[in-house]
């Protein structure tokens, strides 16, 4: 197999793992659409940071994006807490506002620069292997491999180190508060990591397919088992399987890789849904 294909598969698999790990908790906490909101709302963060540092390569862009993601979460929660709006309306109000601010900033101040909103929305997995990390003349491989690898490692560390805190704050937040397991800290850490992962995965799959990678494998796993550890591991495996499946569809049909991965995720989810022996299938029809 060619090196390029291996790189693409590796990058996409790492993205899938990074997203599934966080996505499991997002799904179980009922804040799944926050991932959609964050992936759209980080745009103004990227733009503002770009206007400050005037460079598209700077790692500060990720910092800006994470701050914007955090700001989105904080504003949404503030609005929910004042009881002016319910949860879903609050999410659907805040992120278009942030996104619009981002677009206006791009149009007003950055229109000569190729900030490439297409890249943000669509991603382009096929180009990732060509964007290499070269330090002191030594080619270490694709940038995306390193950045996504680092993010996947970060997420794995987070889940591994904070497993108990995450579990308890997900399933019994009041108990977590009483026992001082820091549920709020867990929540904001989770949201920050979601922003970082979303930004890291933009180049790879684009902002909307990130949502698929975060939600579909955990949901499929949750149809098959309801033990947290199994859901986490199974979602990583399903995510990687969908990635491979999607990549090969894209390769042979010559279509968008990100789109094919999303479609593959959807097909696997739907097939699992139709299976008669997934133990959560409640037969209510």
């Amino acid at each position, binding site marked *: 197999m060619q090196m390029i294909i291996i790189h693409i598969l590796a990058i996409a698999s790492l993205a899938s793992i990074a997203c599934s790990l966080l996505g499991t908790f997002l799904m179980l906490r009922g804040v799944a659409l926050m991932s959609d909101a964050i992936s759209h709302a980080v745009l103004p963060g990227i733009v503002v940071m770009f206007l400050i540092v005037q460079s598209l390569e700077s790692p500060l862009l990720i910092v800006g994006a994470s701050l914007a993601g955090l700001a989105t979460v904080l504003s949404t929660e503030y609005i929910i807490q004042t009881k002016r709006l319910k949860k879903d309306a609050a999410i659907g109000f805040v992120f278009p506002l942030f996104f*619009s601010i981002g677009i206006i900033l791009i149009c*007003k101040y950055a229109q000569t620069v190729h900030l490439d909103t297409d890249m943000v929305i669509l991603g382009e997995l096929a180009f990732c292997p060509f964007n290499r990390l070269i330090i002191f003349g030594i080619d270490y491989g694709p940038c995306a491999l390193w950045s996504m690898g680092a993010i996947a490692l970060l997420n794995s560390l987070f889940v591994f180190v904070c497993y108990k805190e995450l579990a308890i704050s997900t399933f019994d937040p009041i108990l977590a508060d009483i026992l001082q397991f820091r549920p709020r800290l867990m929540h904001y850490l989770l949201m920050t990591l979601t922003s970082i992962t979303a930004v890291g995965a933009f180049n790879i799959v684009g902002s909307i397919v990130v949502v698929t990678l975060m939600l579909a494998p955990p949901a499929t796993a949750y149809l098959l088992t309801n033990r947290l550890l199994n859901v986490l591991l199974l979602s990583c495996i399903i995510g990687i399987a969908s990635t491979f499946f999607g990549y090969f569809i894209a390769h042979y049909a010559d279509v968008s890789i990100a*789109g094919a991965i999303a479609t593959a995720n*959807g097909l696997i989810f739907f097939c699992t849904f139709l299976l008669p022996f997934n133990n959560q299938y409640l037969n209510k029809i």
Partner: protein
Amino acid sequence: MIPLDFSFFTYYYSLILVATGTTILGATAGAIGVFAVLRKQSLLGDVVSHAALPGIALAFLITKNSHPITLMIGGSFAGILATGLTMLVARTTTLKMDTILGIMLSVFFGFGLVLITIIQKHSYAQQTMLNTFIFGNAATLLACDIYYMIIVALIVLGCLTLWYKELMLVTFDPSFAHTLGYSTIFFEIVMTILLIMTIVIGLQTVGVILMSAMIIAPAAAGQQWTNRLHSMIFIAAFIGGLCGTTGSIISNFCDHLPTGPTIVILLSIIVLFSFTYSYKKR
């Protein structure tokens, strides 16, 4: 008889078109948005907006023309399919609603991307279509687009007037409606279809991501001022229409301000103002 000076109309023709279109869209989306928000289905609008992409792409692939009605039918079918699948999965599994919405939204959109790359191999319409879908093209609205918007607006208005009492009942007390013999499912489907039609016709103007705001924000603002459904609908429609007009005018006269985001920012300002200064008893 006052002699009318028609040069005003010809000079500002495109602005008048855009302003009319966005006003009608804003008012319609605001009105139907009230029902979506009250039924906690705000994000269903987001899902339908994203899910419409494969429908539009498929309609283009099959019919090979980009007539707005064709695309709208395709988009509506995809929206209906997405909504139906959402309801199916929600009723038969223990997955939470927002997870299912997130999956449908992104998977349908991803499939749409696949179709777009297929289109790209056969024609050059791909890039414009995707850009229009995501960001809208309010500035290039044609008169025929306005006619379609008027038709959709009239349908929505008609249904809301005709079935106002039933829709109100089904929204606030579905069990009671059921005991009275009304078919809850029928009216839920009516509301969902009206929502889908509005969204699909509005996608061309403001794009996917901002369509959510057009549906949710006027209703959110309306909720802050009143507890009565009919007032809420009027306020929401008024705010939606007002922001549509103002947004297009401002966007026309200021450089580098695209129409869609401007409208959303105006809507958000009004919503935030409503949060702070409304005096409704809570």
